[in-house]
């Protein structure tokens, strides 16, 4: 019986495009942990892309895609690795939309994805170290590397006339990578970083950290942390002691929660988060409608990551990661027919008909280097207790 099953599977695999199958895609995000207020929207966006694909029934001869969620915890590499292992070996996922935070993404990539030859497209891992990680062409991201974010941050601050800052970062791959790339870019542009100090997440009291940051001084405090974790604690302690009045927030801090926590206390602060004003972003937000907040950070990236997996499968004519991993760059980049969110059905048909496509999606996807987004950022400001969009860069 077992041999028979194996034989049937083998036949089904070799038959490839012609036979319809139910393709499982892992959605590994930190549904618990320091960015748990962002992940529900990210998961919903990924699943919206899958629903769209299924509704079109144009994928690989009527195949369907199903989401299998896994909790990366964002910080616990052991837990994330175990979840990825389970999704691949027991659920049999053919690709992973995830993971979210840089540390766990690197851990899953090197321990599980490489060993099993599974394609991973992360919507939000931004550590510069992942650009050079060994990936056998299996790893992509629809979020830009923080090396780029460091440069954008520098531009934002210098344009606002701030040339002396203190930096504090959450003590992990994401925080350290971002803080270091920012410091390098800022100092190269002539700015001064008075102190670049870590803070630990999950503490009750950050007054000692603020004491050190305040002693070093600076016109603005750059908080490269998480809004649901120490980042908010740092801001609270800085405001309480009057050490800093305005802040600069990178992507991990930009959230509705930040405004909810601090209201008008952070007026005059600045920040940036991956985002674009391309037509796709608007379409995506409209598609999300009332189901979830389509402008929530990394939701659009999650939609795009899922779409890329599916489109690459279609282009390769197979759901086998070894076959479709080479097609990801092809469907994402020019030349070809431009694809907006909501046009996944059209895109699948075009690919099936042999037409080259250029997936733009919700974030104007353009993969560069080893397969990471070139990066578009939305610059935000805070006025009257609300977050406003200053401009796009």
């Amino acid at each position, binding site marked *: 019986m077992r041999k028979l099953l194996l034989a049937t599977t083998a036949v089904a695999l070799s038959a490839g495009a012609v036979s319809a199958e139910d393709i499982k895609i892992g959605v590994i995000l930190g549904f618990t942990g320091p960015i748990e207020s962002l992940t529900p929207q990210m998961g919903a966006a990924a699943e919206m892309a899958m629903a769209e694909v299924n509704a079109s029934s144009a994928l690989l001869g009527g195949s369907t895609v199903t989401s299998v969620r896994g909790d990366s915890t964002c910080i616990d590499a052991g837990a994330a690795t175990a979840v990825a292992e389970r999704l691949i070996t027991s659920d049999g996922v053919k690709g992973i939309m995830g993971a979210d935070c840089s540390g766990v993404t690197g851990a899953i990539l090197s321990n599980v994805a490489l060993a099993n030859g599974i394609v991973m497209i992360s919507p939000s891992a931004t550590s510069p170290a992942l650009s050079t990680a060994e990936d056998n062409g299996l790893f992509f991201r629809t979020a830009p590397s923080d090396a780029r974010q460091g440069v954008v941050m520098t531009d934002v601050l210098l344009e606002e006339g701030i040339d002396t800052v203190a930096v504090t970062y959450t003590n992990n791959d994401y925080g350290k990578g971002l803080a270091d790339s920012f410091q390098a870019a800022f100092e190269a542009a002539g700015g001064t970083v008075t102190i670049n100090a870590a803070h630990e997440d999950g503490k*009750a009291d950050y007054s000692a950290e603020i004491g050190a940051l305040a002693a070093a001084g600076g016109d603005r405090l750059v908080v490269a942390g998480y809004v649901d974790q120490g980042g908010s604690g740092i801001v609270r302690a800085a405001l309480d002691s*009057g*050490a800093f009045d305005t802040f600069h927030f990178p992507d991990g801090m930009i959230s509705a929660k930040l405004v909810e926590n601090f209201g008008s206390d952070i007026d005059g602060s600045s920040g940036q988060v991956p985002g674009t004003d391309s037509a796709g972003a608007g379409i995506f937000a409209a598609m999300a409608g009332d189901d979830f907040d389509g402008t929530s950070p990394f939701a659009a990236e999650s939609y795009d990551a899922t779409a890329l997996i599916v489109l690459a499968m279609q282009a390769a004519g197979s759901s086998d990661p070894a076959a479709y991993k080479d097609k990801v760059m092809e469907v994402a980049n020019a030349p070809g027919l431009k694809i907006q969110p909501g046009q996944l059905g059209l895109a699948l048909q075009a690919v099936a008909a042999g037409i080259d496509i250029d997936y733009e999606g919700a974030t104007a996807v353009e993969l560069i280097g080893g397969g990471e987004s070139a990066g578009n950022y939305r610059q935000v400001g805070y006025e009257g207790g609300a977050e406003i969009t200053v401009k796009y860069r």
Partner: protein
Amino acid sequence: MIDLLNALVVLSNYVLIPALAYGSQLALGALGVTLIYGILRFSNFAHGDTMAFGAMVTILVTWLFQGWGISLGPLPTALLAIPFGIAATAALLLTTDQLVYRFYRQQKAAPVILVIVSMGVMFVMNGLVRFIIGPNDQRFSDGERFIISAREFKKITGLSEGLAFKTTQGITIVTAVIVVIALFWFLNRTRTGKSMRAFSDNEDLALLSGINPDRVVMVTWLIVAGLAATGGALYGLDKSFKPFIYLQLLLPIFAAAVVGGLGNPLGAIAGGFVIAFSEVLITYPLKKVLGYLLPDRFEPDTLVQLLSTDYKFAVSFTILIIVLLFRPTGLFKGKSV
């Protein structure tokens, strides 16, 4: 002169006031640990989570009051809820004593066994708290945030440095003073308090003179419940409430109790402040303070920070080890560990 004032304000804002509040919280915790050690004769590792439990009940009752629209005006509603936290903690501790500790007391178990038992209790209590309120941050402070905020201070005094004094810090310090005075009055002036001290000094002699041990044990747990719930709630109010944070708090609390001399209430208070001030002072960069005090020529370029803030907990560890090495009975005369 202005420079001197500025230096003083900076030091108060970042060192003196936070350390005073933190020290009061540690002192309340260490008093509980030291009482249990003195009278029940074991180190209670479940103390941190007892504080978490008291704080949790206080938070739940605070939310209830807030829902009913009851408030204390400028003061946090939590102050009204603390008695309920104390009552619930007392019930929990007495139940634990009946179910767990009494058995080992009757066995005349060695203190080290009781320590391990208390670790088991710690895990159960920690689980209980996380089960009821969840593992996340909870905010329950309301009312006026500041007695004086940094911005107002600058405006009033015209100094270039601000001084912030939070309402919760003020309440913490005042409450701690009241609780400590009440405790010492109780221990030194009342019959029950005296019998507790007698029991602590010499158990056999106390029993011979007709002191009821069950009553002493019960009163001890009640006092510990009061100290733990108050300390826990004040810590949560001043900083933030998260179940795991109380587990981390266990180290500085024990350090405070041991440094002061285990079993000696006066030592616990002194120990609390010694630990708090060393933690804050050693990790505080003196650059700004020295910048004001020293002439321009000598102004430091570096932060003048003895130890990075990452190593805050190492400070209490180090003090603990030094005291144990050179003065095993603590600064005040306590029992040796």
